[in-house]
């Protein structure tokens, strides 16, 4: 209890963040880590959609919008204001006039036009293209039918007009690091690949491929007085056990924790003071393939939800580093229904449902899973005995992440367990279950429900925020009832930080991605100088 209290206080302190508590200290080095396995792809953030790469990109680059972790929504970053037309399709941005690239040149509307046009280069297949595609005419560029995006117009150096193809909030698209604004001419040069120039708070100093990236304070950053620290180093550290040693050895300032370390850190009187816990927008699920006969029956899918004691798994195996899932939308989603209850653990009910569905003796299925500790085979291993109790036998099919993503997209599975983004925009995220969304996009369970489609279409069309949220809540409720998946949990991201590191933000989209300009290190840091 006490530990929990300490953790919550720590959380409160951090969220309270910049404004209160202490005055930020200038100087020193922030020693950050990139914990997600592989090395950085390269120094062109347009080519990578990985969280691992966004971690360094946040230091060097900025996009049109940024994610406000405290408000839990995208906010304008490179523009001072935006005017939206009555039909909600034309956005006119007044750009910042104090944003300078690291070579000293001022950002203009041309840079934005250039960047978005680059992203639509069909021959290059930039992953950010899917976000820019909401601008009218972007697809023509991608297909090579046009040189310019017709819906993107420079009015003057500091004003730009954007016409969208549908009524969505472009903030959710253009806060992504994949859409970072590049300096138009410089980025075309070859040297950009080795020495990136951006608008971010830190300018690039050095990159040792596979090891770390170093950036130093950009004096002309547009936020007054920021950034505070002189330098940021981002070390690539995929190995959790090694990261643990390095953190305890005070070689790094922050570390993302897995379940086992979460327990250890919570139990430690010193380490427990520096834990930041955030409900992230990832939903862990077991997807069931409707073309596998037993799973075509709703009752069987529900039975699975009843048969698994998810709370016990979360408590014992995931070590409370997760929140019980009720349906698809996560806790931090604006359309999350607080009154919705998760499926209770009820093996008797499960047996009954199975019997009704014609499987009184149960059945056997093949469960495709990776080795991930939070949403892979370890979870499946804990589930196996529970399903065994209601007569369902499980055969594990181990695969790598890459294969899992292909298998889910091709439908070549009976069941899979995965972690999927379920935010931050509830509408976008729920669209993955719209019957018009192909399996190859993200409707992995080929979900098809007329009522659900209608609710979603209405939500997309309406201007009434309350109605939209109401519709999405209902749609989310249908998902719970129809149970195309076993709703397991929402990730609780936990970051351990050293006592001298201040200003972390509870970023629900991905905790490891931080705005470095809001952070500082106080004098007790080994790298305070």
């Amino acid at each position, binding site marked *: 209890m006490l530990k929990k209290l300490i953790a919550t206080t720590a959380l409160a302190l951090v969220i309270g963040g910049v404004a209160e508590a202490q005055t930020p200290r200038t100087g020193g080095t922030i020693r950050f880590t990139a914990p997600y396995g592989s090395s950085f792809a390269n120094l062109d953030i347009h080519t990578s959609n990985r969280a691992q790469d966004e971690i360094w990109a946040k230091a060097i680059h900025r996009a049109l919008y940024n994610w406000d972790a405290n408000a839990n929504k995208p906010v304008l970053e490179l523009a001072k204001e935006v005017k939206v037309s009555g039909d909600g399709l034309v956005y006119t941005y007044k750009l910042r006039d104090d944003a300078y690239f690291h070579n000293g040149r001022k950002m203009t509307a041309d840079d934005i036009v250039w960047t978005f046009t680059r992203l639509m280069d069909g021959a290059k297949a930039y992953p950010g293209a899917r976000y820019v595609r909401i601008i009218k005419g972007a697809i023509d560029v991608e297909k090579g039918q046009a040189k310019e995006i017709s819906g993107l117009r420079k009015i003057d150096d500091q004003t730009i007009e954007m016409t969208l193809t549908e009524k969505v909030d472009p903030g959710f698209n253009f806060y992504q690091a994949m859409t970072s604004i590049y300096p138009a001419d410089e980025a075309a040069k070859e040297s950009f690949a080795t020495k990136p120039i951006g608008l971010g708070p830190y300018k690039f100093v050095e990159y040792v491929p596979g090891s770390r990236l170093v950036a130093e304070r950009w004096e002309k950053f547009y936020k007054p007085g920021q950034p505070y620290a002189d330098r940021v180093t981002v070390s690539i550290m995929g190995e959790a056990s090694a990261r643990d040693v390095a953190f305890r050895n005070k070689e790094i300032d922050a570390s993302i924790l897995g379940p086992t370390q979460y327990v250890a850190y919570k139990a430690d009187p010193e380490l427990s003071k520096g834990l930041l816990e955030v409900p992230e927008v990832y939903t862990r699920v077991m997807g069931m393939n409707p073309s596998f006969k037993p799973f075509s029956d709703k009752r069987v899918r529900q039975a699975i939800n009843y048969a698994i004691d998810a709370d016990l798994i979360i408590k014992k195996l995931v070590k409370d580093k997760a929140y019980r899932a009720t349906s698809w939308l996560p806790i931090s989603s604006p359309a999350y229904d607080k009154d919705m209850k998760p499926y209770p653990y009820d093996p008797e009910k499960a047996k009954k449902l199975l019997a009704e569905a014609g499987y009184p003796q149960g059945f056997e299925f093949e469960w495709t899973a990776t080795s991930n500790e939070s949403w892979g085979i370890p979870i*499946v291993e804990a589930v196996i005995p529970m399903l065994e109790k209601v007569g369902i036998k499980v055969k594990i099919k181990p695969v790598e992440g890459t294969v899992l993503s292909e298998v889910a997209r091709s439908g070549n599975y009976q069941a899979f367990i995965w972690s999927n983004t379920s935010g931050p925009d509830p509408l976008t995220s729920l669209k993955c279950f719209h019957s018009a969304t192909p399996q190859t996009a993200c409707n992995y369970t080929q979900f098809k429900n007329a009522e659900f489609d209608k609710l979603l279409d209405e939500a997309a069309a309406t201007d009434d925020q309350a109605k939209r949220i109401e519709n999405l809540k209902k749609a989310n409720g249908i998902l719970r009832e129809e149970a195309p998946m076993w709703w397991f949990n929402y990730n609780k991201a936990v970051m351990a930080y050293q006592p001298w590191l201040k200003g972390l933000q509870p970023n629900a989209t991905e905790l490891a991605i931080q705005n470095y300009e809001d952070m500082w290190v106080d004098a007790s840091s080994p790298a305070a100088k």
Partner: protein
Amino acid sequence: MKFRANLVIGGILFAGVVIAGIFAPMLAHTDPVMDANLMYAEEPPGGAFWFGTDAQGRDIYSRVLYGARISLTVGIVSQLINTVIGVCLGLSAGYWGGWWDDFVNGLTNMMLAIPSLIFALAIMAILNPGLTSLLIALGLTNWSFTCRLARASALSLKSQGYVQAAKVLGYSDIRIMLTQLLPNMLGPIIVIGTLGMGGAVLAEAALSFLGLGIRPPFPSWGSMLSDARDQITTAPWISIFPGVAIFITVLGLNLLGDGLRDILDPQARTRRA
């Protein structure tokens, strides 16, 4: 006779592992796969759980015992495959010579040049992680030494009188290879095989670390050790016992191999490290 410490100690250690594997169903307390019970997750050693329990609440003692089966299977089967490949290629190449010999030689040099762990890693990625894939991956990547040895022996043996005699008697080539040449090179080949078994057990652990090892339902020591590496500070017993099991097995095999070499292949202490 001289007391051969390495042979005896290695033999005892290895025999222990074999016995543990064979009698695992009798010695184990619980089923290593099905008896996950989260109510007993991460119990320290003692009481009903001699070696404690793991994160899924499974009895580590039982899992380590069953793990012996996996590790022995991995070691023995993969080395058997290696030995068969190596002997077939090497023996025939040395005996027949000619273009076949050149071909086998090139193949061996190529295999030597690709580090076997990297080769195995690639095969695992292609075949998807799992026991069968691992047996194939380790069985296909470590035969070059056996092959070289078999080839060299065949070359030196084929000019021997009794082989020539067998030829004159009209024995078929295959028969000569199997009955005249093979028995005379078996000793050193067994030594290489024994040492290679230890290597296979370690390779399984390394591949598990890289996320490409054996996956459940098999309780393999490598994956147990690798999965538990984050828990070293919180629940060290989960990794200590499989770690010790790997160490004992590989140590036993290495000592056994050394001991066997002294007996079976005395003149070739320096031929292969």
